[in-house]
């Protein structure tokens, strides 16, 4: 069957075994369990040694009414024998569990791609709900694709009959039937899924059995029935660094990274959060890890969440808070206090579509302005951005390091796509990570000398003095201070000096971060594509293809948004052209132009969906034409 949606380049095509990638999208009703199907297919894909990237896309409604177009839930996976960095531009295979799923997804399908539909759901009623005049499975309107359809619902009911489930429950097994078929198509083992079903339904063995039966039935169907157009197909494993692997979502990796960061700092973690999509996942993950000295606190709102975290840092834990768009906005006043009191704090922003409530379940990168500039007065805060689910782990550790080493709040940017997407992750060897243990200040001042909570140490950091330390009682707050003593001081000199110091301290973070590297292409190329965050995948693929096509392009991906690596100015000056693809109206571009006075041109996309590789390729071509 079809290979990857992208035209293979010479190099790729001639590789042995020929590199290929396949994009499959499962789409169905919110109730059809497509996310589960996708998740398990992902796992089996990973176990098969393929590289992969996924893109779950589900509605904002908890359970939108059955059969409606806005109730469609989809899960896309791109996997192959070559390095995969995006969930794929166009699906090669679309599994549509009902008319609405077909309606909302078929246009994305590559021409000639395969549609597998459950005709059992194409009832007049469902067709109407999806806005079909007539049945597309029959009216030839899907001619430009390969269409196969059979009654998955019925086949499932038959398969699970022995277990005497109610009709509703029995139909719930449809997704396993479908998964079974998919496993057959791509020559996968069923065993891991069977194990998983057994543990998942440990409390209800009959459900486990029924689902396993459906899984097997789907698999057998592919094996036995000659489905025209559907052939079994094995995708070779992708070359990968040797080691132990697992799949990880951004939210998981972030949680693990924060735990690791606190452990490396030798601190307890206090996490103050308030639920909001897509940030909640972090709160959920951390609340299960108490054994790592973690206290999670679901506050009454985002303001209380960050304030409690600041309070915890003041008391000697590492305070962490997390939210998305509107919730981050509410935290900005308290961020100012964290800047003023110079306490460590990690603020995680899982960006989503906006403004305002916007598009809670869609991804976007539009909070960079807010992160860098979004506070009253001159209140500098270091900003870091994750580029992928796996990268979130290291970024989280880096955020903890900066926060504790420099006594400063740190903003860690991720987004809804990274939070939910899964990718294979080489399990890190924690022994390889350099610890950065925190040393609380506890030296009692000599006779006649006062406590100096705003004395300056390494990297201009002030001492971290824990309440409970005898002889170091002191007061801090949000009013401007006298350098050193920290006593209230409104004098011009004090304000100027403290403002300069706060700025210098944060800029000084650049001294402890690696130089910016070029991840593809050469220094001083004709064109640099500069990105940040989750646009990494599409940019990297697009630049890789461009280079393969012989274009003089480089890819630079920035993790440290503020301050930027020290070599940035020199690095950027060398490129003839710079384009900055962002899922916003051009925010990083502002920083680059302001900081380095280079003619960085924005490439913007604000649709709630990640860039397609082709979109960036086109921009590169246009620029070099």
């Amino acid at each position, binding site marked *: 069957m079809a290979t990857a949606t992208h035209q293979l380049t010479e190099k790729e095509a001639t590789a042995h075994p020929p590199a290929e990638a396949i994009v499959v999208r499962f789409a169905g009703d919110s109730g059809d369990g497509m996310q589960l199907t996708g998740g398990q297919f992902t796992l089996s894909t990973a176990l098969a040694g393929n590289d992969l990237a996924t893109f779950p896309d589900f509605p904002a409604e908890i359970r939108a009414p059955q059969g409606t177009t806005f109730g469609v839930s989809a899960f896309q996976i791109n996997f192959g024998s070559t390095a995969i960095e995006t969930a794929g531009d166009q699906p090669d295979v679309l599994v549509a569990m009902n008319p609405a799923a077909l309606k909302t997804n078929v246009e994305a399908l590559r021409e000639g791609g395969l549609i597998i539909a459950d005709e059992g759901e194409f009832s007049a009623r469902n067709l109407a709900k999806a806005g079909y005049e007539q049945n597309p499975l029959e009216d030839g309107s899907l001619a430009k694709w390969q269409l196969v359809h059979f009654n998955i619902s019925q086949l499932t009911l038959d398969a699970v009959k022995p277990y005497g489930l109610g009709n509703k429950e029995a139909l719930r097994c449809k997704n396993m039937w479908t998964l079974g078929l998919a496993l057959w198509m791509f020559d996968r083992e069923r065993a891991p899924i069977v194990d998983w079903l057994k543990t998942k339904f440990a409390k209800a063995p009959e459900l486990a059995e029924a689902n396993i039966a459906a899984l097997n039935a789907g698999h057998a169907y592919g094996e036995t029935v000659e489905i025209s157009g559907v052939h079994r197909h094995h995708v070779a494993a992708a070359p990968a660094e040797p080691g132990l692997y697992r799949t990880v979502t951004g939210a998981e990796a972030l949680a693990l990274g924060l735990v690791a960061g606190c452990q490396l700092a030798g601190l307890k973690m206090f996490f103050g959060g308030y639920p909001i999509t897509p940030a909640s996942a972090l709160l959920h993950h951390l609340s299960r890890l*108490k054994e790592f000295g973690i206290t999670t606190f679901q506050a*009454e709102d985002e303001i209380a969440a960050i304030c409690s975290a600041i309070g915890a840092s003041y008391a000697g834990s590492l305070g962490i808070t997390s939210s998305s768009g509107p919730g981050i906005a509410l935290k900005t006043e308290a961020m100012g206090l964290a800047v003023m009191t110079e306490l460590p704090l990690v603020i995680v922003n899982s960006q989503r579509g906006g403004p305002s409530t916007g598009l809670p379940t869609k991804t976007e990168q539009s909070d960079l302005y807010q992160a860098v500039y979004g506070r009253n007065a001159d209140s500098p805060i270091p900003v870091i951005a994750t580029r992928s689910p796996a990268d979130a782990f290291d970024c989280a550790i880096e955020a903890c390091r900066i926060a504790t080493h420099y006594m400063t709040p740190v903003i860690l940017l991720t987004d809804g796509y990274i939070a939910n997407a899964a990718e294979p992750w080489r399990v890190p060897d924690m022994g390889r990570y350099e610890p950065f243990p925190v040393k609380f200040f506890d030296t009692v001042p000599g006779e006649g000398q006062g406590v100096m909570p705003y004395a300056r140490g390494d990297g201009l950091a002030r001492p971290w003095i824990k309440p409970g330390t005898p002889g170091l*009682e002191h007061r801090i707050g949000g009013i401007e201070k006298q350098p050193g003593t920290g006593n209230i001081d409104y004098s011009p000199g004090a304000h100027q000096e403290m403002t300069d110091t706060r700025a210098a301290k944060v800029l000084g973070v650049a001294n402890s971060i690696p130089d910016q590297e070029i991840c593809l292409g050469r220094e001083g190329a004709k064109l640099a594509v500069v990105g940040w965050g989750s646009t990494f995948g599409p940019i990297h693929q697009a630049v890789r293809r461009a280079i393969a096509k012989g274009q003089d392009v480089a890819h630079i991906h920035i993790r440290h948004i503020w301050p930027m690596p020290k070599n940035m100015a020199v690095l950027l000056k060398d490129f003839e052209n710079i384009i900055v693809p962002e899922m916003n109206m051009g925010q990083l571009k502002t920083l680059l132009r302001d900081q380095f006075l280079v003619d960085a041109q924005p490439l913007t996309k604000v649709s709630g969906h990640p860039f397609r590789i082709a979109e960036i390729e086109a921009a590169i071509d246009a620029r070099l034409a």
Partner: protein
Amino acid sequence: MNDMSPVTTAKDWASDQEVRWCPGCGDYAVLKAVQRTMPDLGVAREKTVFVSGIGCSSRFPYYMATYGFHTIHGRAPAFATGIKLANPELDVWIITGDGDALSIGGNHTMHVLRRNLDCQILLFNNEIYGLTKGQYSPTSRVGTRSPSTPFGSVDRPVTPCMFALGSGARFIARGIDVHKNLPEVLKAAHAHRGASFVEIYQNCVVYNDDVFASFTERSVAADNQLWLQPGEKMLFAGGTKGLALDVEHLCLKVVEGDDPAVLVHDPKNRGVAGMLIELPQGFPVALGVIYEDPAPTFESAVREQNAAAASGKTPDLQALVAKGQTWQVEKEPHKL
């Protein structure tokens, strides 16, 4: 909290910072009362943290020789929650004003009370915004003329203690800035495990002078102040008058002091607490510990759960990152 803390005097609890309230402000009296009370509490200075919001009253922490955190407007309870959860050993005092705790901060006040975090909350109620130069506050009486209400305020004030009761507070008391009983009230608040809510009537000499005179003036104090004592009769006016239940109207009424119907104060009775808090015109003002009914504290419940959830598990970071279904990639691309 009752560790071997050295014997101290009020002076030991005063910081070296110059006090910056207006001459004659009721805040001075409260500061003195607190500094006089601390030595009797058997707590160490280094384990004591005063957390405040913003307002004249919220400057308080600067004047205590303890750890102190002058935070942002209305959010002190949230900071206090983080501090106490991070280190339950600390003795946490929240200092706030009527605007800080009940205008911008009402929500956090409610939540810290319902969660029952172990702390003392001293609400300096002067029925005005002092620091911002005298605008009316949510506790100002209807008709209050202020820079923002030149024709008098029209919205009905909230009753702090009633709000606390409605929010699930387990300890509710009242005091007066200059009254000799204040230290007793503070001690009771400190002795209570959980969130102790203390409303202190505080005179703002500049913007709301004598607003409480109707019951604080020496001449009328005896008749208009009802100091409650657990297990004691509800007597006032030098014992000549008392409170009893009006069984017909199901509310409280004033009777002669020697009337056997005079009620005995049971701090655990929520229904009566509400009536005492809202004693109408013509009744005295209920003072002292109005309601107290201890319940498990938030930080202890959190700590216990954390311990229980952690027990038996070892915090193995390497194991954690390697969790879930994994696969090994050998040198050669691997096949199942």
